[in-house]
């Protein structure tokens, strides 16, 4: 799966979690940019991503994430690893 496709899917998850159909995220988007992005919504985001991409994340990796770009990179790395790329 290309990074662009992952980004599109992640954007959809953000729109769903924050109930905002107009929400557009970029690599640099972080919790300072979205008012409702608190610790509980962060859990919702990560769980939704695990389900969407069929992945399991490590809590230590999740805690290190600083923005959407790092989130997408983590997903891409795990998907590539899963596919033996």
């Amino acid at each position, binding site marked *: 799966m290309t990074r662009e496709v992952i980004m599109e899917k992640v954007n959809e998850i953000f729109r769903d979690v924050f109930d905002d159909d107009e929400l557009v995220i970029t690599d640099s988007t972080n919790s300072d940019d979205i008012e409702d992005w608190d610790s509980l919504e962060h859990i919702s985001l990560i*769980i939704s991503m695990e389900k969407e991409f069929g992945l399991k*994340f490590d809590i230590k990796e999740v805690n290190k994430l600083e923005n959407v770009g790092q989130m997408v990179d983590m997903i891409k790395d795990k998907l590539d690893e899963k596919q033996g790329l």
Partner: protein
Amino acid sequence: MNSYTYDSIEVGHKESFTVTVTEADMDRFREITGDINPLHKDSDYARERGYRDRVVFGMLTASYLSTLAGVYLPGEHSLIHSVNTKFSGTVYPGDTLTVEGTVTEKNDTFKLIIIKAVIYNGNREKVCKAQMQIGII
């Protein structure tokens, strides 16, 4: 009190308990919350509006969801993250409620469980439905 750990709980795990809502519970709830709405206080007022007696506070009924998580499922290690609740039936003082919770999902990353909770009255009618997200600490 139960003390289930994250690893000891499986999807499908179910726990339940019963509780009778008393007049004294109603009075204490009113005193704590300051909700003096007459529907919960005045039997005549409630009857005039089609209820057979004063109505138990929905949030008093829902408060037993706290007991479900904190005492039964998972019990001691519970930390409630969220509760989405619907009130689907009327509860009256004196009703005996059955509170049931079933684990529908586990998340290994955050060590949390999702519980589908249902509260029934004595006639086995659903009076409250909820989805709870509970961390296991």
